[in-house]
């Protein structure tokens, strides 16, 4: 072979190899993701010497984000004080970017993540080190600790397996390669705590306001129970340039109508969250109209789903035929129309599905649902099958049953429509017993009622979210009678490890097929929006895909000269 030919062959070989590598499957191997600070939007913001006034209907009781059970009265008040390792980009919330880290590198096999930290300090001035990160990861996955929302990390990260390489570098091995690790780590509940403070706090002390300090944009100034929560700007925040206010002050107003009235007359600039399921109706839009645009309505579509849980510890829902009958007979379209829509304002929700269409995956599309049993219209066929099932199960004339539900107006409305539909179509006479949250949960755990009406928000932007919430955990509130299906369990495990999006989609579709048998404990009813209101002068707020993310208020600023929107 002549020299030039050899060289040519060599180049071709290298070129082929390079192309081959580039054309490989999308899972990043040995890839690094860099997020230098500041990004472009920071310079556009304007600092104002003012206190952002917010309004909230919730009273925080817990301040330890790791142990948080609930969103509005635990995570939302505490979150502004802390940072996570990674988080959802506030200006592009579908994207996950670095928060405390500066960059991260994924190993070729996808099982090791190496994080490089920014130069940051805690509110007491101490630097943020890799030791703190390791401590926090271990605290989250601590065996035996109460970790209602963060427990999911245990399925990825082995307790104490993180390695501190140097002051600002940490290596985190995970149990199996999964696209969901980073997604879960970006959850607002996975905050980083200072080791030198947190390790000295007992779990009870950690729940007290002001005991745990963070690195975040806001410091807790004062919490007056039932009155207000006040924050002051962290002037030493490691992200230079933000936040854009001197402080934040959230007044606690328990009465819903009073909160609306307060926004209307301008006593507050923003609602809590700023979105929460409570405002997932036409009220923000109505406020926008009434104030001629001074109040801006914000909605996160498909944020919360209302569903029926059938208790299988006793008749009649012990019988899968009866469960299937209910699943078929419920008219989801009518229920959604009545509960989620308002004349002249439009609809703030859509028909319920088994899995959320999030993260770019559409599993249950409208076309798909138009053919599916339980969803298809007109409902004659489904109703006929449902009646036949009831008769086969010995309930041709229906039966009486009790429905356990919360006393939130939206849930009660859904219950009323559901009860009327089931009474008309199957002769099932449901007695609605709305109660407060604690009683409702107690009843679910004791199985005192025949069915419960509940709602869940989407936590991570992935269809797996609802699989995990409803079907992975056996026992507990969302699956009180431990319903399982062997193939479904397989699918849940498999999808967490599957890197190929097409194959994952297939797995999800299989899962939905199984669930549409109608024999599980979950009967989806309707999706609802999470809503909120903000003064039109607050800039740079970008609607996230779920109400559980983007909760720092570090990126919004006030522009007094912002033009009033046209309509």
């Amino acid at each position, binding site marked *: 072979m002549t020299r030039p030919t050899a060289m040519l062959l060599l180049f071709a070989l290298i070129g082929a190899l390079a192309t081959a590598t580039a054309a490989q499957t999308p899972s990043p191997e040995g890839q690094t993701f860099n997020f230098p600070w500041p990004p472009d939007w920071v310079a556009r913001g304007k600092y104002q010497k003012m206190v952002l006034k917010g309004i909230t209907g919730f009273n925080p009781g817990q301040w330890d984000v790791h142990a948080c059970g609930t969103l509005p009265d635990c995570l939302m008040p505490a979150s502004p004080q802390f940072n996570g390792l990674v988080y959802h980009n506030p200006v592009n919330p579908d994207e996950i970017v670095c928060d405390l880290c500066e960059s991260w590198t994924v190993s070729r096999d996808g099982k090791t993540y190496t994080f490089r930290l920014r130069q940051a300090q805690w509110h007491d001035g101490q630097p943020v080190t890799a030791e703190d990160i390791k401590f926090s990861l271990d605290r989250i996955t601590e065996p035996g600790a109460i970790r209602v929302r963060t427990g999911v990390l245990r399925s990825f990260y082995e307790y104490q397996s993180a390695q501190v390489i140097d002051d600002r570098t940490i290596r985190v091995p995970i149990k199996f390669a999964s696209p969901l690790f980073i997604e879960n780590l970006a959850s607002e509940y996975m905050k980083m705590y200072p080791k030198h403070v947190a390790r000295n706090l007992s779990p009870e002390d950690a729940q007290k306001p002001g005991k745990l300090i963070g690195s975040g944009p806001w410091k807790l100034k004062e919490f007056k129970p039932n009155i207000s929560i006040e924050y002051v700007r962290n002037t030493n925040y490691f992200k230079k340039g933000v936040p854009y206010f001197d402080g934040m002050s959230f007044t606690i107003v328990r009465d819903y109508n009073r909160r609306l009235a307060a926004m209307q007359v301008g006593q507050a600039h923003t609602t809590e969250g700023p979105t929460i399921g409570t405002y997932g109706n036409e009220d923000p839009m*109505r406020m926008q109209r009434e104030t001629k645009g001074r109040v801006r309505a914000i909605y996160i579509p498909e944020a919360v789903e209302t569903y029926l849980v059938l208790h299988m510890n006793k008749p009649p829902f012990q019988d899968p035929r009866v469960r299937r009958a209910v699943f078929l007979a419920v008219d989801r379209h*009518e229920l959604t129309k009545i509960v989620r829509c308002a004349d002249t304002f439009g609809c703030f929700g859509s028909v319920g599905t088994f899995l959320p269409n999030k993260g770019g995956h559409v599993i249950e599309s409208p076309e798909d649902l138009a053919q599916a049993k339980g969803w298809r219209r007109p409902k004659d066929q489904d109703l006929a099958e449902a009646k036949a099932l009831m008769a086969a199960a010995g309930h041709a004339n229906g039966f009486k049953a009790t429905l356990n539900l919360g006393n939130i*107006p939206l849930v009660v409305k859904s219950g009323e429509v559901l009860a*009327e539909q089931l009474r*008309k179509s199957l002769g099932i006479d449901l007695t*609605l017993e*709305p*109660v407060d949250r604690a009683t409702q949960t107690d009843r679910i755990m004791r199985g005192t009622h025949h069915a419960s009406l509940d709602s869940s928000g989407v936590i991570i932007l992935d269809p797996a979210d609802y699989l995990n919430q409803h079907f992975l955990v056996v026992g507990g509130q969302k699956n009180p009678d431990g319903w399982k299906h062997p193939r479904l369990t397989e699918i849940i495990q498999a999808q967490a490890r599957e890197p190929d999006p097409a194959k994952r989609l297939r797995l999800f579709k299989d899962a939905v097929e199984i669930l549409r048998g109608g024999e599980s404990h979950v009967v989806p009813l309707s999706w609802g929006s999470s809503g909120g209101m903000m003064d039109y002068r607050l800039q740079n707020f970008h609607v996230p895909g779920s109400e559980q993310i983007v909760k720092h208020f570090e990126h919004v600023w006030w522009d007094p000269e912002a033009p009033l929107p046209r309509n």
Partner: protein
Amino acid sequence: MARKQEVLAGGETVVGSVVPQTRIESDAPASPWIAVARFARRKPLGAVGGLIVLALVVTALLAPLISPYDPRQIIREADNRVPVYVAPGAAYPMGTDHVGRDIVSRVIHGARISLYVGLGAVLIGVTAWFVVGIVSAYAGRVVDLVVQRVVDAMMAVPGLIIVLAIMAVLGSSLNNVIIAIVIGMLAPVVRTVRSQVLSVKEQEYVVAARAIGARSARIIVRHIMPNCLAIYLILATYYLGFAIILEASLSFLGVGVPPDVPSWGGMLTAAAQGHITKAPWAGIFPGLAIFIVVLGFNLLGDALRDVLEPRLRGARRGLMR
């Protein structure tokens, strides 16, 4: 003769002085209709109250016949459209509610619920606590002391807490609401009745009866009960209104009857949680119903008290002024 005055639900006082049975009998008119007519002429406001109560009873009895729709039925018009929050008009004289049910039907059936709750609470509550009050006053020191402490304690704790707890334990249903209201009535009714009986006890004729050796039971039945009957009647009318308002408050707090059951209080609550400005009719009509009915009971009770009490004091006096 002690005259510490006690207070009823309507704020009226009933004085402790009572006359013996015989004088009342001599005033009895020949026919009940004449008595009613006389009452109506002397006390026109009371007559209005009586008419309202009558209207309530008739509505409640005839509800299934006169109501255009089933109160729990979601109306489905042509092409499956559900009329949510439709303003009052030809099709729906009082409009529709937040899930598309006819408000006229719900208000009419609500009369049944209100009457059932009111009558149930009053018949059980006023009767039971009446007996307790009499026993407590008559049975002597120890029993009286204990009962009084319980009554005082119950009056000192905001009744709301007690009632909320009862409803939370029992669960929301019509009968449980009645139980809760009955317990809420304990303190005021027992207190009132007890002080009445105490004052009667000191009357000369009762002392005389005891002196000649009459047994306590006989004294209670022959002398005390008939006079207290008038008080019972007055208490009953006032507490009917009280029960209806309490049921509405329980619904507001979320522990009343199930939400799809057409109780006026429940409808008020749903309207309060919805939008008063957007659909004011959803709250106005049940609110008006509650108001009119309670007003009726109170006016009737007022008039009864005005008429019966002077008779209790002395035959001629009541006719003056």
